[in-house]
């Protein structure tokens, strides 16, 4: 088990290296293929009328004048050893782990990520609890009474939930519950500062995000439960004289839940890398918003930082899911 986790961790580090290399390559090489030069990239970080010397100066300052592999090396080196950046009168040290220094904002990426992470985390965790509970509950009830009014109603709602874009549900939620009936607040407050307000402001976002996911989970749970409840071991459980609730929860749900936990882990991992649309709609300054900024600004360090963080969460989620799966299903052995 421990050696398994150790090997997986090594593989994960290698994977993250590959991810950063690929991101680097996409950012630097693809524009070259369509004819964009480092000059033009640098030009985006200058106001107007840049002279040749200006471009050269900015290029040098951003490190864009070096070969791509040197830039990549500096980036990797920065993560383990830190880096120094010229900010004018002095240089500023970017502490370990230095995930680069934003071209645009002129701040180190890592502290930005860590300061934004609690927001994305709050959003993802709250929504996850909501969608897991509601999705699984609806799925189970639907599965126990297939084709009933409940089943048809909620599966219809689930289909709508999956189909409706966040632009719609999110904005509608804001319109109704923040403006029309101002039940919920709007300005994000950290959990540690005021838990009540934290939950209050995040609630519409949680609900909108949860609607999207709980729809998927309800369908997933429903089909899983339908399948499981036809298993032989359910018949065995009943033949032992167990109450129907025990049969459904202890024997049925227990088995149906395992694949759902797997999907859940992956979804949560992906979400921690930034709920881009939700964060934009609800003006939550999380990782996703940071990613959008990076992309609109062509700001490589931001993009790299978010990509790596997202990749990290996905890799970790993968590992956790595998370990959890082994814990949940005794037939699975890690090796």
């Amino acid at each position, binding site marked *: 088990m421990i050696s398994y986790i150790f090997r997986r961790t090594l593989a994960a580090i290698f994977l993250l290296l590959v991810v950063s290399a690929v991101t680097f390559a996409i950012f630097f090489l693809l524009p070259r293929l369509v004819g*964009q030069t480092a000059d*033009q990239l640098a*030009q*985006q*970080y*200058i*106001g*107007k*009328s*840049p*002279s040749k*010397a*200006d471009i050269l*100066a*900015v290029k*040098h*300052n951003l490190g864009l004048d070096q070969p791509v592999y040197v830039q990549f090396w500096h980036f990797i080196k920065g993560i383990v050893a830190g880096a120094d950046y*010229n*900010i*004018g*009168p*002095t240089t*500023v040290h970017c502490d370990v782990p230095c995930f680069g220094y934003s071209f645009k*904002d*002129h*701040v180190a990426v890592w502290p*930005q990520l860590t300061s934004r992470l609690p927001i994305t985390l709050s959003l993802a965790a709250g929504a996850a609890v909501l969608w897991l509970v509601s999705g699984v509950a609806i799925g189970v009830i639907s599965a126990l009474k297939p084709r009933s009014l409940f089943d048809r109603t909620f599966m219809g709602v689930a289909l709508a939930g999956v189909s409706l*874009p966040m*632009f*719609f549900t999110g*904005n*509608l939620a*804001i*319109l109704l519950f923040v*403006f*029309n009936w101002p039940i919920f607040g*709007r300005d994000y407050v950290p959990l540690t500062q005021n838990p009540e307000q934290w939950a209050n402001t995040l609630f519409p976002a949680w609900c909108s995000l949860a609607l999207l996911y709980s729809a998927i989970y309800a369908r997933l749970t429903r089909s899983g439960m339908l399948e499981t409840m036809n298993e032989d071991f359910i018949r065995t459980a009943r033949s032992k004289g167990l109450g129907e609730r025990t049969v459904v929860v202890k024997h049925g749900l227990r088995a149906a839940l395992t694949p759902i936990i797997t999907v859940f882990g992956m979804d949560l991992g992906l979400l921690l890398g930034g709920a881009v649309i939700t964060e*934009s*709609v*609800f*003006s939550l*300054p999380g990782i996703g*918003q*940071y990613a959008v*900024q990076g992309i609109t600004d*062509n700001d490589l360090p931001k993009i790299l930082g978010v990509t790596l963080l997202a990749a990290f969460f996905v890799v970790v989620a993968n590992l956790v899911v595998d370990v959890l799966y082994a814990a949940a299903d005794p037939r699975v052995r890690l090796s």
Partner: protein
Amino acid sequence: MEGKAPIMRRSALAAIAAIGSASLLLAGCSKADDSKNEGKSAGANAATKGVVNASDKKGGTLTYELSDVPDSFDPGNTYYAYMYNLSRLWARPLMTFEPGPGSKGNTLVPDLAASKGVPSDGGKTWTYKLRSGLKYEDGTAITSKDVKYAVERSNFARDVLSLGPNYFQIFMADGDKYKGPYKDKSAKGLSSIETPDDTTVVFHLKQAFQEFDYLVAAPQTAPVPQAKDTGVDYVKHIVSSGSYKFQSYDEGKQAVLVRNPDWDPKTDPLRKQLPDKIVVKLKVNPETIDKDVLAGDAIDLAGTGVQASTQAQVLTDTAKKAGTDNTFGGRLVYMAINTKVKPFDNVACRKAVQFAIDKASVQTAEGGPIRGDIASTVLPPDIPGYVKSDVYATDGNKGDVAKAKEQLKACGKTAINTNISARSDRQPEIDAATAIINSLKKVGINASLKQYPSGKYFTDYAGVPKFTEKQNIGLIMMQWGADWPSGYGFLQQILNGSAIGQSGNTNLSQYDDKNVNEMLNKSIATPGDAARNGIYAQIDKKAMDDAVLVPLTYFKVLLARPQNYTNLVSTAAFSGQYDYLNIGVASK
């Protein structure tokens, strides 16, 4: 002058394009607080005619909201009009604009300086005297050296602070030799700016420049204490010279300003220091901004006007409409005719285009009269030098096929095949170009639409003369606003023959007329506003006679006026935005 301006004073116009269709769906839904505030508003466009809710009431919290992030709060590293406007709260430039409605807001008044600049040497040397008793937020005295330093850091350290314009680098004598204060650590600094004493600053220019007062109205002349300058990081700890100082600054999220106790109203006839607190929220959902503004509790910092969905909602409601200001944004929407692409080297062919275009349909495509009045001159009405005229008037602005064909015949053509370029991520521009293509077709001019991303429109496509010539792009969609509200500020980058660059060109017509070039050079050396404005009108007329561009609309924005705020006046100096200097909070 070097002519590679990619985009003059970026007005965050791109934000307009970023609205999802969801907002349209939401438009019809909300009827929440319709009649609540009826009768309170001063009427539609009131803030374009005078100061609305004029008041000296102190206290309250004022909120600005922005869907984006600004380039920087650092007065030496910004180029957005709204930051020019807002930064005056913590950074006092030598000169500024008097808060006033419309083009009255273009009036220059001394701010940090005690009076307007005193020109000598025929306008090549400008001397400013600072007011006495000026202090930073930490109580230390503001000296003329700090002004000099501010100009040096903002214009000459382009590798570090690269986001603002660099007019000083271009205009100052020896500007091309000085390496900026971060590299050149000598005490002397830029030799062409002298500080004979702590309250005097003298600028020596390369050439006579009569509009220098406009240049020093940029936040780049707001004093920065060298000891406190941390280059790029200065934005995190800005030392205020204005009526407010930073209580907190949260990168990319928000800034909170509070009263600056060391700001002395006796040194400042302009600022009133009304609210207790000013909050600038960044990255706010555009719909949310509109909602807050309509509720009366926020100002749309970018001043680009309400979203399309909100616009529909506001205009169909009389009460709400009374709370809006539809104002010129100091911009011209036009189509340049590329004089280097055949057959548009022939003036008759250009005139054929002028007559052919149905400007009414273009206006509709741009979003109707709310988004702009039909234009017939290069200078918009809110820029000094504007004289009403319409050389190519057609009935109802619908175009005149007969006259166009007549011109085409004079040009020796019956049909023309050409291309028209527009920015792919700006839907109104594409729609306008499509309307133009349709009206040109009626006279036998076949134009095909070529779309390019706005981020590279000037650096890679429309602003690269070789590219346009090679691709047979004869017609180029364009929008233009000036860095400072004068005819020169507006015209010189788009009509000056010597401003044509190989990339980042903004003289898209590649118009190189000896008379116009001379007039531009003469104007800037001419003392007296009236005399200069006369020249600008002549340039405008000449360019129209030569038919080098087709004015389409004078860009307008629809601002919602937050009714709980006081001293709201839409000023032409900042693209029609409300003047941010003295907005206060009314008692509720």
